[in-house]
């Protein structure tokens, strides 16, 4: 190659990726990387500082650090009863929400795809409507209906819904509040699976629809169903407004009630409740990761 050509060539490509420009590119990448860490650290502090402060509040004492308040939680007055009630409400809410939404999502995907926007909109309503408006409406109906239907089985049903030991009315309201999360979790799973082909394959092999749902659809949507279930459970374990306004005692309302007389116990239980919710979410994430590793496609 002649000197002239070489000189021209060097001049022509220098700006397009020679050695010199790489340094600023790397520096820019390093800069972006540093910013990521800054954002991550700020976010971490935002979440961890209040949590750490809460933990410190519960463990400090005049004699130093003690876990007494945590060990006293199981025997605290009202804990077992209210935590148990909230767990039962959560389990029933999960069950009803899934029984309602799994067939709906599958039906929309397979048979009525044109209804998808409508169903999406309907499930968004609980997010758009303030819970206070919902609960005031429910309270009005609960106040009016038993009197109006007095002496009929319907009035009995309304009383049964408000049984303080297990207030089914809360389950019904929580199902509505959980709809947006349940629908989106299930819809994401349905869109990722080739549900139409799988159900048709099962049908042509002789399976009835219930069998198709149990043997094919539910296992395929396993992660989505778990997602929906855990999100719903977390919602129920933390829901305060509806239970408080309707006058039922649940785990969150109990925490608020004891906060006045036993503030350290109240905060300790809140911390544990938060950790439990995080553990559940991490479990979903771990299950999902395992599934992705099993099925790279």
């Amino acid at each position: 190659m002649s000197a002239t050509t070489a000189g021209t060539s060097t001049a022509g490509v220098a700006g397009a990726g020679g050695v010199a420009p790489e340094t600023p590119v790397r520096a820019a990448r390093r800069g972006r990387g540093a910013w990521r860490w800054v954002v991550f650290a700020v976010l971490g502090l935002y979440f961890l500082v209040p949590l750490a402060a809460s933990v410190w509040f519960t463990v400090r004492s005049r004699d130093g650090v003690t876990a007494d308040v945590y060990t006293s939680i199981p025997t605290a007055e009202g804990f077992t009863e209210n935590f148990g009630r909230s767990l039962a409400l959560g389990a029933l809410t999960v069950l009803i929400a899934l029984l309602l939404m799994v067939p709906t999502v599958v039906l929309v995907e397979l048979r009525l795809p044109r209804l998808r926007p409508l169903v999406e909109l309907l499930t968004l309503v609980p997010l758009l409507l303030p819970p206070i408006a919902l609960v005031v409406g429910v309270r009005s109906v609960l106040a009016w209906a038993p009197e109006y239907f007095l002496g009929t089985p319907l009035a009995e049903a309304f009383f049964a819904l408000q049984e303080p030991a297990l207030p089914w009315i809360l389950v019904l309201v929580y199902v509505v509040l959980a709809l947006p999360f349940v629908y989106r979790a299930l819809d994401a799973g349905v869109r990722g699976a080739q549900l139409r082909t799988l159900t048709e394959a099962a049908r042509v092999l002789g399976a009835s629809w219930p069998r198709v749902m149990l043997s094919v659809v539910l296992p395929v949507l396993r992660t989505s169903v778990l997602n929906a279930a855990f999100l719903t459970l977390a919602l129920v374990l933390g829901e305060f407004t509806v239970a408080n306004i309707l006058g039922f005692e649940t785990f969150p309302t109990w925490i608020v009630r004891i906060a006045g007389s036993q503030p350290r116990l109240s905060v300790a239980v809140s911390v544990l409740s938060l950790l439990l919710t995080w553990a559940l979410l991490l479990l979903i994430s771990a299950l999902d990761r395992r599934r992705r590793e099993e099925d790279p496609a």
Partner: protein
Amino acid sequence: MTAAPEPGTVAAEMPGRAPARAAAPADLREQPPVGVRLEGLTRRYGGVLALDGLDLDVAGGEFLALLGPSGCGKTTALRAIAGFEVPDAGRVWFDRRDVTAIPPSRRDVGMVFQAYSLFPNMTVAENVAFGLRVRRRDKAERAGRAAELLELVGLADRAQRYPHQLSGGQQQRVALARALAVAPQVLLLDEPLSALDAQVRVQLRDEIRRIQLELGITTVFVTHDQAEALSVADRVGVMRAGRLEQVASPDDLYERPATAFVAGFVGTMNRIPAVLGDGDVEFLGVRREVLGAAPAAGPAFALVRPEALEVEGDPRGPGRVVTRTFSGAVTRLTVALPDGVEVQADVPSAGSQGLTPGTPVTVTPAERPALVEPADLTP
């Protein structure tokens, strides 16, 4: 409609590309073959007519391919046989049994889908045995049948794997085994090879044909790939706009297309301006007999395959080679003729090196009767 030919004629000529496999289970082989008849099937989606009074007879034990462009209704027809589509009009018969209103779960058909359809939560063996589990067969029978069929498709050693641990071709083999495990009356194949790479596709295609012949099971195979259809089917039905244009053996379809659409869709066909005389046709300066019934005299198009044209270098020839595409033993030439006519011709590669782009040539049709289409017909 043409009568269904004796099944199995194509396969006898096929070279055995697939590796040797185990024989099919005896009870599957002993099943009497069932014929399928579609009678005036009509299916409309909104304003689109997917099936327009479709009539089709598939003989017991026959391998029939439905071929056609996208949207021609071939998959709808297959889904109507499976029971996934309920026709607006018409009937589906399995021999003398009217199955039009019977749901897919009770039709007794096996189906292999275009998309991978194995149940991801089950092992290969569990997938194959699924249909038998639904039918409440005992565990030993299920395991035995799954093992036999996995042996048949050459995947006995993959029985305990999960679908995601298999290649695309292996997944489709398992899907075939699963479809056959329930001893179906009819096997339906909905473009099962389209997601596979070329080499696996040819191998699996031949394997499907081998198994179909061994079991003698009536099979309907939907594809848009003409090479696939022509190479394995006893007969091929070419569909267009919800109707069958022609149902014939691969040879007949290629050599004697019934319509201009079939001629254009199956293989490559040159349409060369011609003049129809009394029983013969003149084009490219020569006269040839007319194949089949001759239309009325007048302007027409001669329909000629590329391999039925001879090309010779000629300094005073009217044609000019435009492009040259080498494909092994044969080279395809595109030749421009006067009046803007362009034809494609396949010539033996050996000795055709001189026919480079720009070379003046003479194009002559081979000495054989020519198919003719009146000039006023649109393809």
